[in-house]
């Protein structure tokens, strides 16, 4: 489904990504791991077109992502969450999730001004889809509240719901477990596996929480200093000497 081919990114003299290649097969959960500064988020930002790749190509369903503009990424079927939450803070939970359906709806300025029945109907359908996700994420009690008034863990669920609202084929999760407590991490793992089956998703996640990555991923890709150092099943990657060295230091 997603094929990253020899991707390289430089910021000035710093090589953030160097010739990275891997594949995310349809229907799988792939974990992307590595120490801080390894290039994981840089890669994510290439996938959502926030950064330009200096070299290489990224293919999604056989077509190059590098040829489409940033605001079309959601429409081709890639949804994402952000490392430090990027919610629309002043909006309610419901409205946030409804923005998530922006790429699946199409009425423009003129039609919205006049708001004929077709627009009202589209709005209603959007709200219904959003409400279904609110139930799925157990956000019913807070649906009408401003997201900035909610606790961090709840905001993370809102962000996930917003990403799902665009009906993605590929879901990119940037550190979904960060800031969550032990129980919440366990619940998150179950949730990700559940929605993968239920919504027929492919998932690529960046995560520091090793037990989460290793328990839910089908495959794991490890980066360090912008290079891929290991790839395989969680069991294989865990044994990889370069990874152990990257995490635990030289003497391993």
């Amino acid at each position, binding site marked *: 489904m997603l094929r990253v081919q020899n991707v390289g990114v430089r910021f000035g003299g710093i090589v953030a990504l160097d010739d990275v290649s891997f594949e995310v097969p349809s229907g799988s959960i792939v974990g992307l791991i590595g120490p801080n500064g390894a290039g994981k988020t840089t890669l994510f930002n290439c996938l959502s077109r*926030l950064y330009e790749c200096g070299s290489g190509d990224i293919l999604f369903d056989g077509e190059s992502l590098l040829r489409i503009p940033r605001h079309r990424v*959601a429409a081709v079927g890639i949804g994402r969450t952000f490392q430090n939450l990027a919610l629309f803070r002043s909006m309610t939970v419901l409205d946030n999730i409804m923005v998530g359906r922006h790429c699946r709806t199409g009425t423009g300025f003129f039609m919205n*001004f006049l708001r004929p029945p077709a627009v009202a109907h589209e709005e209603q359908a959007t709200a219904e889809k959003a409400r279904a996700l609110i139930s799925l994420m157990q956000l019913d009690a807070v649906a009408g509240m401003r997201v900035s008034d909610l606790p961090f863990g709840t905001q993370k669920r809102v962000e996930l719901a917003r990403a799902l609202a665009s009906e993605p084929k590929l879901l990119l999760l940037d550190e979904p477990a960060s800031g969550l407590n032990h129980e919440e991490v366990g619940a998150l793992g179950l949730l990700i596996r559940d929605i993968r089956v239920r919504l027929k998703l492919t998932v690529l996640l960046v995560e520091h929480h090793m037990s989460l990555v290793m328990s839910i991923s089908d495959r794991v890709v490890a980066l360090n200093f912008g290079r891929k150092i290991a790839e395989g099943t969680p069991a294989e990657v865990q044994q990889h000497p370069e990874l152990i060295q990257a995490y635990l230091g030289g003497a391993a």
Partner: protein
Amino acid sequence: MSRRDILGVVALLAGACVLPFVVSEYRTFQFTLVLVYAIALLGLNILTGYNGQISLGHGAFYAIGAYCAAILMDKYGVPYWATIPVAGAVCLVAGFLFGLPALRLEGLYLALATFALGVSLPQLLKYHHLEAWTGGVQGITITKPDAPAFITELGLALDQDQWLYFFTLAVAVVMFVLARNLLRGRIGRAMVAIRDNHIAAEAMGVDNAMVKSLTFGISAMYTGVAGALSAIAIQFVAPDSFNIFLSITFLVGIVIGGLASISGALYGALFIQFIPNVADEISKAAPWAIFGLFLIGFVYVMPAGVAGAIRMAMARLQRKRQNP
């Protein structure tokens, strides 16, 4: 809309319809200007309040709208009512075109660019090659329209000021309804999303560049329509009535009224129309000092604007009613 909101709007409209029959001619004229300002403020609020783009130059679009109306009526004999959509369309295009390069500017830098527009336009209006149309420093005088025949046939005797008030009220109602449609739907959400987090908005599929520049156009259109109405109401346009102070006054109006609020435009309009008069009555020597005190007082007491204060009071009332 809740039932209480509908009742509120109906009461407001009923009050607005009775108003010109119970107050003096001059007050009627003042309330006409309140409605005009409300439309202009709504336009600026769509841009600044909802979309987060600061404009210190909306007086320029107000001026363009006013000159459109004046030139069309004076030079081409176009009926006053027909100049309104033309002024709106011209400002829509002007605003959209200005919004394109403005895409590269954020926050205070955009404020400076729009300031440049607001400062320069009055002087461009005096430019002597344009004098044939604009009348140069002298400006253009236009005649006040009479109430149309059908009003008299209906048995209503409206003088010019009353008719103009109702005409402006009708335009204002249409503009407010359209704005509400836009802001509560898909596009309105996209505007706020861009203001709150433009990166996430784009990741959700919002075409930021398109939405921002069209929002600039729509905003200018509203302000242009208001400008045209003001020209008709005041019967006169001149470059110096559209100085940079007007642009700043608009910004004051939306902040006092309440950012990102539709009703806030009306409160803000009342403030910028009447508070200077009140200040003038309190002190002839230093009215702007008094105005400044009012401004600070309002901001201090109502940090989210009048609309925000009303919203909070309503919420408190409701909570009290639920658990007394």
